[in-house]
């Protein structure tokens, strides 16, 4: 890759045209929310989709060559021709009458991810969480005990809200209602973090806009 020092305003003509094209694409895309859907937006959208697809295909082929086809071509692992055939068998999805052929490679994909996921998620996602919820603090500080009680009661109530799928009345009404409040607190915190995430990316765009126009240094 030709190194383009993005830390400084480009001096060569291709670099300058490049950042202005980048700015133009940004403005064309943002014309949709900030003005209305225009042909400029659609042009930028189509160009971007074409670029992403092309680059994804090239990178995937590169990965395939580097990781597996090299073993095939050197004769080390000739049986790798089988997954290659299975990979092409996936294209049977396109033909309705032969769609069943694609189920075999999908079976391998689904089986491997499901098997791994089922087994591997048990310890960190269930066992560790339950142990952590039930483990009392070793220090005597009041705040530690408060946090422990908060998390323990909150987790129990919130889990009961999800897992008790029958109508929440009678003895379970109180804990499930309380669980709902704990969930709302968690979702509120999640929303606050989501705002940070989205605005961090948007501020990057605002900075790029100012840098290309040389209002702030690049």
């Amino acid at each position, binding site marked *: 890759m030709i190194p383009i020092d993005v830390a400084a305003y480009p001096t060569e003509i291709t670099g300058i045209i490049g950042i202005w094209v980048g700015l133009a694409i940004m403005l064309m895309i943002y014309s949709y929310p900030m003005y209305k859907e225009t042909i400029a937006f659609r042009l930028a959208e189509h160009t971007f989709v074409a670029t992403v697809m092309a680059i994804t295909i090239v990178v995937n082929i590169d990965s395939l060559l580097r990781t597996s086809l090299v073993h095939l071509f050197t004769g080390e692992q000739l049986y790798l021709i089988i997954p290659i055939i299975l990979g092409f068998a996936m294209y049977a999805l396109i033909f309705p009458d032969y769609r069943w052929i694609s189920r075999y490679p999908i079976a391998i994909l689904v089986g491997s991810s499901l098997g791994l996921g089922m087994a591997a998620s048990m*310890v960190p996602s269930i066992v560790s969480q339950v142990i952590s919820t039930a483990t009392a603090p070793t220090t005597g500080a009041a705040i530690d005990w408060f946090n422990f009680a908060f998390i323990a009661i909150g987790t129990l109530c919130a889990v009961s809200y999800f897992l008790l799928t029958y109508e929440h009345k009678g003895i379970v009404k109180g804990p499930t209602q309380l669980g709902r409040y704990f969930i709302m607190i968690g979702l509120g915190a999640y929303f606050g973090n989501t705002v*940070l995430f989205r605005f*961090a990316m948007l*501020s990057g765009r605002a900075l790029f806009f100012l840098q290309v126009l040389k209002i702030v240094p690049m």
Partner: protein
Amino acid sequence: MSSGILGKITNIDRRILYWILFVVLAVPFISPIGLPVFVTPTSQAMYNSLNSLKKGDVVVLGINFGVSAWSECLPGSIACVKMVVRKEAKLIVFGMGTTDVAITWNEIMSKIPAFGAGTYKEGDDYAFFGFLPIQETTINLMATNFRQVFTKDTKGHLTDDIPMMKNFNGAKDCKLVLSSDTGDVGDYFIRYWQVPFKVAVGWIGIAMNASTGMTYIRSGNLVGLLSGVRGGAEMEKLIGEPGSATTNMDSISTSHLLVVIAVIIANVAYLATRRKA
């Protein structure tokens, strides 16, 4: 206030909101405020883990975010790699899930003088293996047989021939994993590297990972967590080298204040309208 004005406030054209937001985001770059950033316990824990590295320890850096998330994950990644270089630990770099690993790694290297000066050398101090598009099964495979996944680095050198890779073939040989991603990959490193092999895992994630990752912090599966640009700014403060995250925090301040004010105004107007009705 009349309901006409209240109605107008609550039903303002969203395009006006977007323009206001963009201006509020842009102005602090022109006229910086320079508000200080306080360090959260999870970022401090990440710093402590990096600070405890010794010369020659192997750190694995998973770059699993695209250029679209550079604002969030890149500053934290740069700051962590600076610490790794400072501690003279070894670095193995690869990426999954996005095609932008090479450009992101180039960007990280361009910000750290030791790479350009040649004092932190490829092959001896770090190895870059590029991109693979698959995540969960590959991370599991790498934990026990790294060479099965990456037979060569991006320059075509066989993994066996890279000096720093001689004693490395999986999780057992790794001191610390830094997973820089926008979602699930940190989970995969916890499942397949931390739980079976007890490797320390630190997560350099987007801001939402501050929520999902916190459960792993509490259960001891993660040693540290940098959440988004905020985490990056905290890490830059801890290592004493302010960077792009610190610059962005003023813009974050003004925009967040705008959102809070907007939510308050909208709800006050709503409650006032409801009371009138």
